[in-house]
């Protein structure tokens, strides 16, 4: 099967997952928000559904990676990797969303706010790759 068709199928499954979480739980499937909520003081029920979503994501996704592909690591060196993690955590908390919340769900709701967020993080990620992989050699 061609790679774009596989990507499209993967995307549809992600879309169906987001639809399921809205249909059953009434919630937006934004991974950064769900993870962030785990470190907040909240009711037990609120914490448990978030933990369940995260556990299902990590376990089923992790198994699928090993079944279908060779598990690939990030090319970033350790300090860059840790800095990147902090920036992703800080930025998604400040901007109220990541690829799933603003991307998959926000765009699906035709939210202009989410569209602006998606265009902004796509642009900054593209510029980051341009700078680190071409202008400054391979810093990452």
């Amino acid at each position, binding site marked *: 099967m061609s790679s774009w068709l596989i990507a499209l199928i*993967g995307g549809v499954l992600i879309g169906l997952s987001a639809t399921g979480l809205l249909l059953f739980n009434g919630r937006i499937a934004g991974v950064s928000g769900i993870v962030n909520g785990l470190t907040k003081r909240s009711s037990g029920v609120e914490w448990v559904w978030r933990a369940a979503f995260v556990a299902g994501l990590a376990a089923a*996704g992790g198994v699928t990676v090993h079944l279908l592909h060779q598990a690939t690591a990030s090319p970033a060196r350790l300090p860059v990797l840790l800095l990147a993690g902090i920036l992703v955590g800080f930025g998604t908390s400040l*901007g109220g969303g990541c690829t799933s919340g603003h991307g998959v769900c926000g765009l699906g709701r035709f939210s202009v706010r989410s569209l602006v967020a998606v265009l902004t993080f796509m642009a900054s*990620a593209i510029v980051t790759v341009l700078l680190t992989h071409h202008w400054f050699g391979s810093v990452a």
Partner: protein
Amino acid sequence: MKAVLAALSCGALFGVGLAIARMTDPTVVIGFLDVFGDFDPTLAFVLIGATMTTAVAFHFVLRRGRPIVATQFQLPATRTIDLPLILGAATFGVGWGLAGYCPGPALVGAGAGIPTALLFLPAMITGGLVHRFVAARFNGMSRSTGISESNS
């Protein structure tokens, strides 16, 4: 209990989708972002497939009065395009471009036992905590959203 099972199943489906689509491979992600270099546009189809699905399905789901195992839909209330939204998204993009991980794929990578994902994840959680710590002290840094738990 039903709500927990529903969330578990949806999380699992999300993870399988990410893995099938190869969003979980940071080198593929960086190749997708490398528009001015060795550009691999395949991952654009992930976003196309996902948003086409939600754009159609959300419409029908939201026509229901309430979700199946919860009392109400909880959707982001804010529509304002403000500085925290722009700064936050821009900051996130830098981290995404540096490591090739956004939050979902980082969790899947950790679940697969990939060392770089296992290191990235605690740093990411720390970043979120740092933002909330800073936001609690400076109003200007508060989260870009109308309700306390929402989008993302």
